[in-house]
């Protein structure tokens, strides 16, 4: 989907045939500046991409080159099979761990948390949008989950997860489990889900719903057969946005997992923190960790601003 971020006033083609030489130079200069800006934004990740395909001898080579001289995919295969490294990378095995468990965890945790967050947020948003349930307090209260630094919640949540919950519900393990992170991610992304979907629901004219109610449809039927299909696109955008948040979350994952439930960002930090020259596999992991969210981000380009500003700014 090639939806662009913003619709811009397009230049009328009428003006084009009469462009003077000076105007052409101006356009060319602007184009050059634009290319320069794009390069500034692309280079850091291109450099990481380049290192991820380089053999160890080229990682710190002077002068540095952007195009690997002897490209190889060994850095990537190494991530999944560190016990059996390919070629020269064997020298630097160090503290490497296989990354597959982290990817499996993230591929379970992020989507499950996202789906629940969007469902809960959508239902509550419908109540807020149509009935102003909770007045101003509830929507404001959900915002606090995003305004306060997560580390402030992490302190009590650790005690809660490791001491309170086990004494109330014996056998329910939340520390270092996927369930524990999923619950937390639902709680800390539901504000985004509520505010984003509320905007889409607000956009559905009430008279459509009222007409159906006059025809004898129940509230639930109206919600699921009239409103829901109309905001489907908005829900999809919200889902992808929440997925970006849950996939990239780091602090909670760092504190509340230890071994079994570590997610991709934590795995990245383990690799980044490894002592020694380990740059190739580290860079390869960085690329793999970014791919899902960059794809998701480009699919919902138009809605990114809405998401990051809780729907305060819409397009």
């Amino acid at each position, binding site marked *: 989907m090639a939806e662009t971020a913003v619709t811009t006033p397009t230049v009328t083609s009428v003006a084009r045939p009469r462009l003077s030489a000076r105007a052409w130079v101006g356009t060319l200069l602007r184009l050059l500046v634009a290319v320069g800006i794009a390069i500034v934004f692309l280079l850091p990740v291109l450099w990481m991409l380049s290192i991820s395909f380089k053999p160890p001898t080229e990682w710190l080579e002077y002068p540095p080159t952007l195009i690997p001289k002897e490209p190889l995919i060994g850095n990537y295969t190494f991530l999944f099979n560190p016990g059996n490294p390919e070629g020269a990378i064997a020298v630097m095995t160090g503290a490497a761990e296989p990354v597959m468990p982290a990817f499996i965890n993230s591929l379970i945790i992020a989507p499950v948390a996202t789906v629940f967050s969007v469902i809960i947020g959508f239902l509550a948003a419908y109540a807020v949008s149509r009935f102003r349930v909770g007045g101003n307090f*509830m929507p404001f209260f959900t915002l606090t989950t995003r305004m306060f630094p997560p580390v402030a919640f992490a302190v009590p949540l650790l005690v809660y997860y490791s001491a309170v919950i086990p004494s109330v519900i014996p056998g329910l393990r939340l520390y270092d489990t996927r369930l524990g992170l999923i619950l937390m991610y639902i*709680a800390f992304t539901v504000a985004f889900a509520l505010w984003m979907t509320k905007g889409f629901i607000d956009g559905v004219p009430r008279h459509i719903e009222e007409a159906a109610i006059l025809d004898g449809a129940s509230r639930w039927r109206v919600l699921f057969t009239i409103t829901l299909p109309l905001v489907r696109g908005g829900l999809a955008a919200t889902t992808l946005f929440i997925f970006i948040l849950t996939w990239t979350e780091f602090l909670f994952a760092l504190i509340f997992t230890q071994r079994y439930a570590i997610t991709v960002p934590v795995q990245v930090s383990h690799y980044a923190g490894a002592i020694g020259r380990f740059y190739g596999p580290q860079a390869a992991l960085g690329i793999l960790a970014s791919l899902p969210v960059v794809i998701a981000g480009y699919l919902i380009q138009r809605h990114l601003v809405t998401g990051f500003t809780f729907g305060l700014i819409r397009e």
Partner: protein
Amino acid sequence: MANIALSSPGQRLSRWINQEHVFKLILVAPLQVLMWAILIVPTLLVIYLSLVRWEPILGDWTQAPFNWFGNYVKVLTDPRFWEVLGRTLVIVFFAVSLEFLLGFALALFFSQDRLPGKRLFTSIILYPMMLPWVVVGFTFYLLFLDRGPVNYVLIQLLGPGAAQPWFKEPPLAIGTIILADVWQWTPFMFLILYSGLGALPREPVEAAMTLGATRWQIFRLITLPMLKPVIIIALVIRALECFKIFDLVYIMTGGGPGTSTESLSLFIYRTGFVYGQLSLAAAMAVLLLISIAVVTRFAIRPLEYREEV
């Protein structure tokens, strides 16, 4: 009434569930349960923890002796706490100002007419804000390595003495952290301001041009005031987000050299989860919650006003 008596349990359930107050209740119930379970109870817990003297190694938290405001006094009289708070505010100030200025410049640049491929360029610029923070941190770590490309370019441009030990000097290390944040979040400012500019009505600008206003006058007296609500929202949200900065610092410097680049979040994390002084961390968390609540109460006022419009 006869028809109620005759109705089956299923019908009664469906009648009950379709009552308006029940309908509303079911809609918000999951959110309420979640808020209580994961937010309100832990918030009460953190207040309790901040008033007792407890570390995980001391045993059961319910048996911990009260320390009342001792933890708060200890935090507030700790020079490191103020140092870390000041440093975090410095990072927020420089990062958010730079993001705003650069984002605004980019938005103005791409708002010009006659720029081919505008959509492609604006799309390219956006991707940093989708990346995981840890990956951005690692990317900039690679760039600023002693033998990394940044030092190489500096040597080529300014001579062999120009290479810098980026992560070994505290001011330089903070600079690289700010730079990484700026690189990742300038796109956010850009996108907001660019769409804000695109949505402005053209008539006032055209009228001013007819009256002979200069471009600077138009910008200062027309464009800027009209964009003000959008600018405030962008600045407030970005500043609150930046204040939480943790991932970049954790990955790029780990707070080092020494503790010279620790951010507030990293400091609380270390105190509570690495050194196990959970009561002190709880006191800091409570102080943080209160001060941010106060700040946002004022900061959010323009936002609420806008929402009513």
